[in-house]
């Protein structure tokens, strides 16, 4: 007798945005599996058209309340590539500091409030706080430092407005940076303790033969630039993104899927970054990775939480390096002469590679913009993981299956709100075209 079982999670909890999961298993085989992203499209790519380039950094910051810096950084670098802007070395360094702040904030939020309840079998982050107060206090203190970095360079932590083409609107003083540096130095031990606490939790192990994709820079841990590389030999400049990857639409998602051409699903994000850039980690982050070596022997999406913890350390070390070597730039930003052109750029958002393609007209207005967020890219891999997990998860009862599947999705820290800003509208014209005036 055919046994048919379904898991339907109407609204996935503790992810950013609105998504659902539908799985049908028949005789132990997954017949149907859909990570349904039904959050309405947000039209960012459409309403940015016609806007002056200078407005773009503020507008794209509105895409996400958790990772605005990523959208600002990918867009502003793409626009600088179009306009031929040479950024000063100090600006380049401050942008690493700015990104480090966002990595800290985003990773600590995910680890403590979204992921930890899974490992502890608790309902939510508030329960975690009740029972594991020192760890949560620690995460909040560290997160506050990330917040401070965002305010220092972005003017405010929500929808920051400090970035402009070529630099920033305001450069912090040496004194402000030194104060921040002192606090970061004091807090580094806390980041190590927090990671040790996570390492003591029963984090599941789900190794998978997954293709990992991240940026790689000749001598830095990747943030604002690099080539696209993978553990299966991919190594291309970002400009060749479309030759190496393909975006495609599936019926059940308002976010485009993405795959490596000829191979398909892949994973981007902290796990990919750590595994593909181990030799670029700071000594403290490298030591932390070494202490968790058994969790990184094979790609395992469930180990992403450790990768996030390692990257919190990395971000703090990056921030300290920038502060210690700070030389004020000659001006917050150089004069920029807009011109027509196009460019594709990628930076490393907390959740992975974020590609922005932009085309401008001669006046420097946006003629077209394309945004490929990490969550869109991870959708196919999330579905592949769930297809593997579903039969064994269902053997443990429906409620447990739901819990396991949700946790597997959360390993990717998907930001659905970020992913759903795309809608392609195709108009078929029939009969006589309308008379134009």
């Amino acid at each position: 007798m055919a046994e048919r079982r379904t898991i339907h999670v109407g609204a996935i909890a503790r992810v950013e945005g609105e998504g659902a999961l539908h799985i049908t298993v028949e005789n132990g085989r997954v017949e149907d599996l859909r990570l349904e992203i039904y959050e309405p499209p947000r039209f960012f790519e459409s309403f940015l058209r016609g806007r002056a380039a200078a407005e773009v950094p503020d507008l794209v910051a509105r895409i996400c309340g958790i990772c605005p810096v990523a959208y600002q950084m990918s867009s502003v670098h793409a626009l600088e590539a179009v306009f031929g802007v040479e950024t000063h070395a100090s600006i380049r360094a401050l942008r690493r500091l700015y990104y480090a702040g966002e990595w800290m904030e985003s990773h600590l939020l995910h680890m403590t409030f979204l992921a930890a309840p899974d490992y502890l079998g608790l309902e939510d982050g508030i329960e975690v706080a009740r029972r594991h107060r020192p760890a949560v206090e620690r995460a909040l203190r560290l997160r506050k430092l990330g917040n401070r970095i965002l305010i220092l360079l972005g003017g405010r932590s929500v929808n920051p407005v400090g970035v402009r083409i070529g630099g920033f609107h305001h450069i912090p003083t040496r004194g402000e940076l030194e104060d921040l540096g002192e606090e970061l130095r004091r807090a580094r031990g806390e980041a190590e303790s927090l990671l040790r606490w996570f390492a003591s939790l029963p984090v599941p192990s789900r190794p998978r033969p997954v293709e990992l994709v991240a940026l790689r820079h000749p001598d830095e841990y990747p943030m604002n630039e690099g080539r696209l590389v993978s553990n299966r030999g991919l190594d291309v400049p970002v400009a060749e993104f479309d030759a190496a990857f393909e975006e495609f639409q599936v019926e059940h998602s308002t976010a485009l899927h993405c795959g490596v051409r000829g191979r398909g699903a892949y994973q981007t994000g902290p796990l990919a970054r750590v595994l593909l850039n181990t030799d670029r980690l700071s000594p403290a982050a490298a030591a932390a990775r070494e202490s968790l070596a058994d969790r990184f022997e094979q790609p395992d999406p469930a180990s992403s939480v450790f990768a996030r913890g390692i990257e919190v350390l990395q971000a703090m070390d990056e921030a300290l390096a920038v502060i210690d070597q700070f030389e004020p730039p000659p001006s917050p930003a150089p004069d920029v002469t807009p011109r027509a052109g196009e460019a594709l750029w990628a930076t490393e958002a907390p959740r992975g590679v974020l590609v922005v393609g932009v085309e401008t007209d001669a006046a420097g207005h946006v003629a077209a913009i394309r945004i490929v967020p990490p969550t869109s890219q991870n959708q196919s891999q999330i579905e592949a993981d769930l297809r593997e997990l579903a039969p064994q998860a269902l053997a443990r009862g429906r409620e447990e299956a739901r819990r396991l599947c949700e946790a597997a999705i959360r390993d990717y820290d998907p930001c659905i709100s970020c992913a759903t800003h795309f809608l392609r509208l195709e108009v078929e014209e029939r009969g006589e075209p309308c008379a134009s005036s």
Partner: protein
Amino acid sequence: MRVVVIGVGTAHGDDGIGAAVAERLAREGVPAHVRVLAVARPVPDVLDALEGAEAAVLVDATQSGRTPGTVWQPDPAAPRPDRVASSHALGVAEALALAQALGRTPRRLALVGIEAERHGGDTPSAAAQHALPEAVAAVRRVLEGWSAAEGEHARA
């Protein structure tokens, strides 16, 4: 008694009304023991603001189905929504639950809500702006009530 008034919200339509109330209060002046703050996000900003406070008034825009511009006082002890769907949605209720879990709940706590009309736009709606003086007065009444109670407590 260390008192903090926290206006919550971002500069995004009616969401900014809590911060606008805080700004008005600060401009008009408050007693020396009262600190007035405007913060963008309930978590972690409200949590930080509550640290060390013995009494707190939180002012925020609400969506409760009331007429836009209505000023009301939600019950801080009311149960929070069942599950936190996403960290984009860690609201005041979650921040207060977290504060309680972390032992940061002040001895006295009051909420002042201003019912929102719309989320978008650069400035608060006419309804919310119209409610601003009433919200400021509501905060002052709470503060005066606490002062009186503390005074009686001291005399007793």
